[in-house]
């Protein structure tokens, strides 16, 4: 976390922005690892083979998203309290930052998998992937960061948390169909 180096070490400022910074960190770490998520399997031919296997592609992309979440989202959820200390997160905020990340990062992984499936066939899909996924992340980021921020300020967090959970549940349920559909199109 290099944020204090760039914005200065004032503890007031850090305390104010730390929930948002943690969410931004979650988003960036998610984004960074996305372009290899399906591209490797595309290159070595596993995707072709998986597409002809009895496992439906919807399940494949769901498992891929789960694997992505376990390797990027979950560590960040676990590390959030520690990073919170470094960023001078107010004590009331810890629990809400962790809860909002826990609820929100799965959505980031699932939406990201859709972006990865869209750009899987492209030689230099990385930049395009970020461009496509960024606007799709806006609602999750807003509700997630808002819940964390309100939690840190000791305000009510129910509405943003409910919205966040709703987004996560909806994308986990529906997004795999879109991801599998674009993957099938890319595999033709």
């Amino acid at each position: 976390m290099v944020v204090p180096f760039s914005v200065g070490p004032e503890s007031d400022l850090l305390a104010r922005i730390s929930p948002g910074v943690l969410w931004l960190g979650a988003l960036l770490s998610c984004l960074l690892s996305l372009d290899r998520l399906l591209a490797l399997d595309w290159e070595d031919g596993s995707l072709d083979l998986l597409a002809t296997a009895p496992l439906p592609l919807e399940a494949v992309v769901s498992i891929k998203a789960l694997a992505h979440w376990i390797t990027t989202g979950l560590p960040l959820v676990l590390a959030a309290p520690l990073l919170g200390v470094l960023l001078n997160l107010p004590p009331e905020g810890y629990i809400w930052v962790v809860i909002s990340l826990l609820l929100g990062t799965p959505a980031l992984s699932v939406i990201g998998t859709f972006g990865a499936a869209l750009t899987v066939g492209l030689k230099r899909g990385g930049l395009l992937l970020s461009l496509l996924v960024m606007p799709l992340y806006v609602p999750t980021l807003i509700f997630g960061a808002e819940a964390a921020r309100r939690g840190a300020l000791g305000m009510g967090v129910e509405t943003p948390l409910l919205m966040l959970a709703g987004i996560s549940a909806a994308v986990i349920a529906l997004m795999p169909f879109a991801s599998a559909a674009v993957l099938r199109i890319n595999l033709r």
Partner: protein
Amino acid sequence: MTLNVSNLRIARGGIPVLDGISFALKPGQALILRGPNGIGKTTLLRSIAGLQPPLAGTVTGGEDQIAYAAHSDGLKPALTVAENLSFWASVFGTRSIEAALEAYNLTALRNRPAGALSAGQKRRLGLSRMLVTGRAIWVMDEPTVSLDQASVALFATAVRHHLAAQGSALIATHIDLGLDAAVWMSAPIRPNRWGWVILTGRSCESALGAGSGPGSAGGWGFWPGTGVFPDCHRGGAVFCWA
């Protein structure tokens, strides 16, 4: 389970490359596809495997029966030989991998990471995957690339066993697999209107050697004059089936 392909028309990049492909592949039979590069062998195999929807025509009898092997093997370099194979065995919900390792002489290499294998060894591992799928119809694209003589023999043996067990195989290859005479069948020559020859049995071999055939390259159904098979005029594509 008989694989029935009828009047298949397939496009690649928006341009039709194959049309009027029909055949039936019965249990115990192998169909060998031969022809120059770019003729559409891979396209046909991908379409039959269900990856690419055809523009017209149908493929029936292959539902949940087809095991597909592409140009690349889909191996994970960090996993060992046995782990790679077990993964596919669990995806297809099948039993042990020992027989497959045995058939391709990979037992000694089972704990070697796939990334440390030679090209030929990787290919053998890729081919052994077909055995753990437990599926009846093998659809294979250039399976013998980078294999040495001994490994090709292993592959031919595996195919023969598969056919003997009432499996069937659809293989695009340039190598004579030396399949037994019992496997070959005979049927009349059926040239189609684009100069494709679908040959069966022994007549295949002679036609491939002679390099001539009916050169009646006509026009395309809906992109007239696109004549996508430049070699048709010279009797190019030969579909051989055994």
